[in-house]
């Protein structure tokens, strides 16, 4: 008799067999991209105007904030507008991952109850959607950079590792919040307030250098504060990011990712019963 291929035993909190899990996840990667594509299509981003909206929406938003802060405030310079748009776009990568991730599990009920697959694919797909929405805005940010005549340097290549850190952060947050929402369904209705607070607490509408030291010391608990600051230094000022900024954001990204993934993986076999 052959060895049992799969054994199912009572659920215990703890990680599933990781090698089999990762192999299965890798095998299903085509599903993640197809699922994300269908999600985008459903939100009408398959059409020309839908895609245009993807660029227009953050652009209009940054225009509104620009009006609000700098025109009414009386000061306006290129650096500040460049900073506002660049950081706002990166912020939306994180925020979209959160809003997409929060309902990833609860809205995938039919799929979860009827098919066996690594559940983590659902929040991952939500992040893939957020990345697809982010990419066109990156081009807009670079275009604005050129139009405003902001400086260029090789230090701007730091944007690549910072973007990687952001993706890890977005994944961690999406995975964590999708799991929490299974147990506390009202998290999804609280989320808009959470992202809004995060927006105001992060150096987007202002630059990190403009706030006082006494306030700044509390910003160490904001996971994306130094991420956005580094992004602005690199992309807008064309400077190298600070070592502290890089360390702070990578540490937060890794901790959130590992915590979220552990929490998710040790709980996911329980999801089908909870839905």
């Amino acid at each position: 008799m052959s060895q049992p291929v799969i054994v199912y035993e009572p659920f215990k909190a703890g990680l599933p067999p990781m090698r089999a899990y990762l192999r299965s996840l890798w095998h299903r990667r085509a599903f993640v991209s197809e699922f994300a594509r269908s999600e985008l299509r459903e939100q009408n981003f398959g059409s020309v105007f839908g895609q245009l909206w993807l660029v227009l929406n953050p652009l209009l938003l940054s225009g509104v904030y620009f009006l609000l802060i700098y025109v009414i405030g009386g000061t306006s310079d290129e650096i500040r507008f460049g900073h506002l748009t660049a950081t706002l776009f990166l912020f939306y990568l994180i925020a979209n991952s959160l809003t997409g991730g929060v309902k990833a599990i609860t809205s995938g009920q039919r799929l979860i109850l009827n098919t066996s697959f690594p559940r983590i694919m659902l929040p991952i797909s939500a992040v893939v959607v957020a990345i697809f929405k982010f990419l066109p805005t990156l081009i807009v940010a670079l275009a604005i950079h050129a139009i405003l005549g902001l400086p260029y340097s090789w230090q701007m290549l730091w944007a690549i590792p910072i973007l990687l850190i952001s993706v890890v952060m977005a994944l961690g947050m999406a995975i964590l919040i999708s799991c929490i929402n299974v147990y506390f369904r009202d998290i999804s209705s609280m989320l808009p307030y959470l992202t809004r607070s995060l927006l105001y607490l992060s150096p987007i509408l202002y630059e990190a250098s403009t706030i006082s030291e006494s306030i700044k010391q509390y910003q160490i608990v904001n996971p994306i504060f130094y991420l956005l600051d580094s992004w602005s230094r690199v992309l807008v000022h064309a400077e190298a990011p600070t070592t502290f900024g890089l360390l702070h954001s990578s540490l937060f990204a890794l901790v959130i990712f590992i915590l979220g993934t552990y929490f998710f993986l040790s709980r996911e076999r329980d999801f089908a019963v909870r839905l």
Partner: protein
Amino acid sequence: MISLSDFNHDHSQGSIAVSVQNLGLTYTTSIDKKPTLKARIKSLGRGKKHTRTVKALNGVSLDVRYGTVLGIIGSNGAGKSSLMRVISGIVPPTEGRIEVHGSVSTLLALGVGFNQAMTGRENVYLGGLAAGMSRAEIDANFQAIADFSELGEAIDAPMRTYSSGMFARLAFSVAAVVEPDILIVDEALSTGDAHFKAKSLSRMKELRTADRALILVSHALATIEDLCNEVIWLDKGTLMARGNPTEVIAAYREFMNVRKSASSDEDV
């Protein structure tokens, strides 16, 4: 959670496909409609119980061997679907152990993973990928799926324009081309019109080979009797009978009739 193409074992007739040992499944469902943080905070310190337990399966043991077509019958809430979900790894058991020797494909509900906004063609890929096929496997089988569904040109129309029969036909077609070692089908045969029903039944008969195990859940007792060579009968989570289809179905019918007449007596 293992994809179909990972295993291409040769299974001889009579070797064990699925072994279920003393399986128990208890659901803990929350009393509140939805579990919320608000509800949890409100009941803090009151020692209020949030949950209610439901015993869906109790001490079920059975072996399914290759070459078997196992039918599962029982009234609503007997635990049929729960048993299917545990065997396919969707829900973990509360007690006992399940060993699966081979690749499993489940057809528990039709059109899982389908997206109404996409065309039939795109949904074939989406549904196939959700079922664990690779893109290359779907490419190779696409024509067969399209032909089987008999949708014709409608395959390129958005799915929201489909009638429910068209939807079911396409969904069954996607599932029918998968050729797993172990196929689990829950109430999916009764789709479409009489013509398509006959067609899906004959497809199920084609899938009845010596190196495959089929597990079917159905209320259509005649179909079960026709297709299966073994039947189990579940009632309230326990295994009532197992064996020859004709005998088990007869016992089940008798049981149902007794219960019916007993309850109709009560009314008098």
